[in-house]
């Protein structure tokens, strides 16, 4: 092997999962304000999505027969809110990664392989996405509750199809995490692939 001569041997670098978790968690903690702005992207998108689904759950509960064009409108709203979520989350995650090219380059100088960098960003964005999606989901739900109470339609609200609501709340959180992780992983992978010299030179 070319990389092995005499007593001098090239080995393998490592990053234990526990340390990866610690580093990601610390990164969120220390940059808390910045992290919350990133999470806010997820939060808004998922709030919109959950509010649309809550509305549908209320209609299901009230046994409203949806007319075809109403059904169309609802589907359209769901698609719209998914798009809003995707754009909002991607944008904030993309910013959060590009701000950190220098850090990525530095990590590689210290011995990180590309995979470590991507791993750290996956964990971090997963945590941020989870928190943002849960807060956003609860927020979207509560807003619709307030609106129904205000309109004196509490009966309709509490008589909603809770099964539908529950599963779709979970979907929404899952979607929030998934989009966040993807939106962070793609730019992080691209940054990690750069030679360290190029990552260090990039100033944003």
């Amino acid at each position, binding site marked *: 092997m*070319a990389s092995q001569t*005499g007593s001098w041997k*090239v080995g393998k670098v490592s990053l234990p999962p526990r340390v990866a978790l610690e580093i990601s968690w610390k*990164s969120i903690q220390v940059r808390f304000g910045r992290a919350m702005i990133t999470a806010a992207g997820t939060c808004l998108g998922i709030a919109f999505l959950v509010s649309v689904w809550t509305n549908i759950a209320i209609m299901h509960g009230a046994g409203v027969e949806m007319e075809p064009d109403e059904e169309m409108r609802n589907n359209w709203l769901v698609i719209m809110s998914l798009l809003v979520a995707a754009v909002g989350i991607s944008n904030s995650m993309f910013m959060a990664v590009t701000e950190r090219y220098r*850090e990525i380059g530095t990590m590689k100088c210290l*011995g990180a392989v590309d995979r*470590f960098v991507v791993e750290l960003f996956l964990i971090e964005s997963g945590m941020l996405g989870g928190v943002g999606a849960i807060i956003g989901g609860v927020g979207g739900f509560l807003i619709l509750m307030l609106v129904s109470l205000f309109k004196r339609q509490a009966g309709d609200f509490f008589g909603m199809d809770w099964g539908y609501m529950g599963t779709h709340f979970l979907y929404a959180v899952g979607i929030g995490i998934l989009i966040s992780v993807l939106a962070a992983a793609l730019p992080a992978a691209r940054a990690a692939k750069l*030679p360290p*010299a190029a990552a260090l030179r990039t100033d944003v």
Partner: protein
Amino acid sequence: MAAEAARESQFEDYVVRTRKLTKIYAMGDQTLRALDSVDLDIKRGEYISIMGPSGSGKSTLFNMVGGLDKPSEGTVFINETDMAQLDAAELAWIRCRTVGYIFQAFNLIPVMTALENITLPMVFAGLSTDEQLQRGRALLERVGLGDRLHHRPSELSGGQQQRVAIARALANDPDIILADEPTANLDLRTGKEIIELLREMNKERGVTVISATHDLHMIDISDRVVWVRDGAIEKIEARSDVELTVGQVDWEQESGTAAVAESAKKE
């Protein structure tokens, strides 16, 4: 076997060798030879200054030797290993264990404390947590920051950050420290302290130091000075030669660039 031994004794002393090292940057339809066929041999334990005006190719050389970028042509050998033959994981190992880097802009990880910055390369190297803490503390104490273990970079002065960077570069007991203009962001006095610290580490630990600079104060303590210009080595001077040349330099002058340009003209 005999051939093997002969080959080893021939290379043994050289921790870095470059052969026809060339880097070409393509910019639009033009190309720039930032490094042009550089042959440079550096012995284990040497303190080398790479001296040259801004844009002469110092950082490019630094990046190639440190495995931070790939040459366009030519090769770099570190401890006899041809860097071009290494895969990504092996390169990472070299960056982790064999080379320590020091930058003009310090490049500490902003969210990590001084101690965490120093233990990170030890994490990658697979050291135990106890070892990491023990070595990390000792290194920070050695560079005079024993009371700043848990400060983050933003809570440290430039000189202190560069000390952390030196300690971090030494984390895994590397063979080589590469420093790219380590004093350029520091005032004159702090810069001198940093250079002296690097020299002490070089003497104490036998680590080879290669420092790119246009600060003539570096010359004083270097074993050899490599003068580069337009991507090529202009001349290599041993310490004794250098002292003669630099006799005429005004030491109070802040701007190293001007002084370098002048001394090059006199040549």
